[in-house]
């Protein structure tokens, strides 16, 4: 019965409101806008807002963008680009050149235009417009919009928007003298779990100097406390998700950098200090492909990565093949000297690139589809370029896994890794396997360089920044096993990102290093060591 009466009252209210807006706006209503009296202007503005129809919306939007002009005979017109239109009929109007002057508004009126506009939009027939208006109000809560929100809340039928309006209403009702309304408001705000609402709730739990609470009602206070806790938990969740994403993103980069290293180290027991330079070669190959597209195929520039990926693989793989055939081959069995030689090669490569391309970084830009990101939560945006790289890393791991486990070359590589002499006895040309595996590992590093060029600087010492971290991945994950490398890379990435907010990037690196040194106390051969019987592995 009561609800019936309530809805009857509501209906009456709507009727009254509706009857106000039934009388359409006339040119006379607008006239004061063209005059100089701000009091009259304010009244005219209220009249427009009260009208609340399509004409009013059009006028307010134009006023908001300062596109309303007045002629010398006090006609008010909307300027739409080059043409002037009558605000009521919408018909184009011609006036003498220089006759139309923009109308003047003061700050008070401008604010009223904005709030009136969002109020009208709250009831606009188009759902998207309504939703946008609500989101705008959440971003910049406006106490003056209280009545508009209440009116819109009564009319709204869409359940999602209705709950949004409830929360908007709650924002205005926090100061309501009635404790039950305040309680309801706090509960509605709590549902939203928006960190921005914290500043609204904080005053409710604050203590005055004399020990009494600013909020007299205990229930409201308790509800506010709960709401704050819920918000804090929500924030913690967002932060965790952000950290996890950053960690996995770093991990996928480390994975791309370390994968080839793990393969070659597992196979020939050689730590390749020039591995970082294969990353660099891949990145510079990407740069060259981009430049080629820029000058020859500017229309397809967005798709240059499609050509850059194979190009960077081939460039790095060729470099790796030459390095193995030309130098490393003669140093097998002397791992420490190989390490020194590869370091020398990395010096030469860096200097070579410095002479060819200059010591400055070169510019590799994202294709346009990699810009932007997914806004997962209000404070958490996942950039597309990082997501692309994570997917890319997954694909590369997949391909590497197929090559290693499903192809003849992979079979040979695995056999040679496990027992070189036995493999040779079975007729495998191990020296060829070495070359191809080395080129394959270098090629994967080239792919890593292609990926890195999308998120970081491309310069001659690009590889140096990643090489030590990728060594750590190999130490952590063990050699010759994809699973170890993946877990090592992701673990290292996530751990670094978890520690970073507390201690900063440098101390995080040191902490990770100490963790690794402690870790190899337990597992000297990494997470996934190959099992064997010989003493000297």
């Amino acid at each position, binding site marked *: 019965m009561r609800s019936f009466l309530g809805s009857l009252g509501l209906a009456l209210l709507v009727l009254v409101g509706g009857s106000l807006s039934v009388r359409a706006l006339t040119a006379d209503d607008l006239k004061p806008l063209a005059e100089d009296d701000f009091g009259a202007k304010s009244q005219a503005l209220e009249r427009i807002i009260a009208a609340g129809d399509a004409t009013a919306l059009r006028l307010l939007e134009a006023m908001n963008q300062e596109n309303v002009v007045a002629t010398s005979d006090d006609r008010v017109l909307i300027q739409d680009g080059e043409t002037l239109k009558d605000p009521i009929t919408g018909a184009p109007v011609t006036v003498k050149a220089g006759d139309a002057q923009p109308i003047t508004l003061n700050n008070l009126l401008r604010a009223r235009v904005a709030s009136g506009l969002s109020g009208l939009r709250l009831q606009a027939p188009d759902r998207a417009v309504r939703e946008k208006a609500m989101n705008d109000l959440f971003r910049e809560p406006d106490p003056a919009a209280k009545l508009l929100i209440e009116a819109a809340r009564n009319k709204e039928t869409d359940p999602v928007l209705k709950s949004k309006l409830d929360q908007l209403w709650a924002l205005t009702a926090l100061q309501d003298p009635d404790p039950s309304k305040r309680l309801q408001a706090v509960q509605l705000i709590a549902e939203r779990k928006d960190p921005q609402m914290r500043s609204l709730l904080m005053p409710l739990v604050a203590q005055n100097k004399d020990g009494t609470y600013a909020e007299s009602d205990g229930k409201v206070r308790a509800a506010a406390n709960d709401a704050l806790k819920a918000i804090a938990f929500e924030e913690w969740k967002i932060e965790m998700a952000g950290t996890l994403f950053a960690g996995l993103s770093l991990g996928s980069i480390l994975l791309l950098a370390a994968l080839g290293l793990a393969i070659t180290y597992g196979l020939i*027991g050689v730590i390749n200090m020039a591995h970082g330079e294969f990353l660099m070669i891949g990145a510079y190959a990407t740069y060259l492909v981009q430049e080629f597209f820029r000058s020859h195929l500017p229309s397809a520039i967005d798709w240059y990565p499609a050509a850059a990926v194979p190009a960077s693989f081939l460039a790095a793989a060729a470099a790796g093949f030459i390095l193995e055939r030309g130098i490393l081959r003669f140093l097998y069995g002397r791992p420490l000297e190989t390490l020194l030689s590869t370091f020398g090669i990395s010096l030469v490569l860096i200097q070579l690139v410095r002479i060819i391309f200059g010591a400055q970084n070169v510019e590799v830009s994202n294709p346009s589809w990699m810009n932007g990101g997914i806004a997962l939560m209000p404070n958490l945006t996942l950039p597309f370029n990082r997501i692309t790289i994570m997917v890319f890393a997954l694909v590369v791991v997949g391909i590497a896994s197929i090559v290693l486990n499903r192809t003849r070359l992979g079979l040979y590589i695995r056999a040679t890794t496990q027992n070189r002499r036995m493999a040779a006895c079975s007729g495998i040309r191990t020296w060829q396997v070495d070359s191809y595996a080395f080129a394959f590992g270098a090629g994967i590093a080239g792919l890593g360089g292609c990926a890195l060029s999308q998120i970081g600087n491309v310069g001659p010492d690009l590889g140096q920044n990643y090489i030590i971290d990728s060594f750590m991945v190999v130490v952590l994950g063990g050699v010759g096993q994809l699973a170890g490398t993946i877990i090592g890379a992701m673990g290292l990435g996530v751990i670094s990102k978890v520690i970073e907010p507390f201690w900063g990037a440098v*101390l995080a690196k040191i902490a990770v290093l100490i963790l690794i040194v402690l870790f190899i106390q337990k597992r000297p051969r990494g997470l996934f060591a190959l099992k064997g019987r010989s003493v000297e592995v």
Partner: protein
Amino acid sequence: MLSPLSWRLLLIGVIAVLALVPICSMLVPETSPFHLSAYALTLVGKIMCYAIGALAVDLVWGYCGILSLGHSLFFALGGYMMGMYLMRSIGLDGVYHSNLPDFMVFLDWKALPWYWHGTEHFAYAALLVILVPGLLAWIFGFFAFRSRVKGVYLSIITQALTFAAMLLFYRNETGFGGNNGFTDFKRILGFPIAAIGTRTGIFLITFVTLVGSYLACRYIVTSKLGRVVMAVRDTESRLMFLGYSPLGYKLFVWTFSAILCGIAGALYVPQVGIINPSEMSPGNSIEMAIWVAVGGRGTLVGPILGAFIVNGAKSFLTASLSDYWLFFLGAMFVIVPLWLPKGVVGLLKRFFVKP
């Protein structure tokens, strides 16, 4: 450990240097061809410090089979400890005329951090030069050797250690002058640091230290302990089957080598007048290894020779063809293991010693 003839030759050589260098640097007029300029004195003194460092690397690499890529860290740590003393002895003569080192005034620090206390005393700083690299090496070595990390794994981890330390020293908050490190030294033990007399003194001390280090290393490698250490290098597992625990031997050689390197760094800083984190960059450690490889690994004369050859070439080439120095260095890294596996000493032996 040395034949009587060698002892005699060494003694004569040392006395000759101790007598001639001061005469040539201070008494001979500058116009004379026998005059030793301050530049030459510093250059040779610097290379002698490198030679001590190379000896230290060779002791662990050539005799114990541990290729350390972290010796520039010990070198720089020794340098930093000496640098702390030198900074403190600037006194009130700094740019800001404050009791604190200039960079601390610049960072608006009000008091010395705790680890700076007492560094105004030379004896304490000298103790730190030995203790800090030694202790760090001992702790790191204990954990690494106990879990039997070796070969390239160990090399990589020492490199990571150095890299992390370099990042740490680059921070201003660490309290070692950040990027710029320590410089603008004024005096050492009361003597003005740029005076030719002081330079000659430090040069002679460095020379004596080099000879002393050589003899100490010689003593170690010819002792019984040295033979066990070489057995660790050749086949560690066989040694373990014979009942030895390699941990103590490796740890001793490793720590001794780190201390030697720290002393070299401490002698290096007053001569070049600056120490900053780039001194401990991983690349520097690897360069130390190439001095050893060029000279001849597993001999004690080799690293000294190598340090002089490589650094002599470096100071010549960086002055005239700076773009190509890295090519030359890189080529050395490739050529020496390929065609000169025993280094210059091995080459000389082939020509002069009958098999």
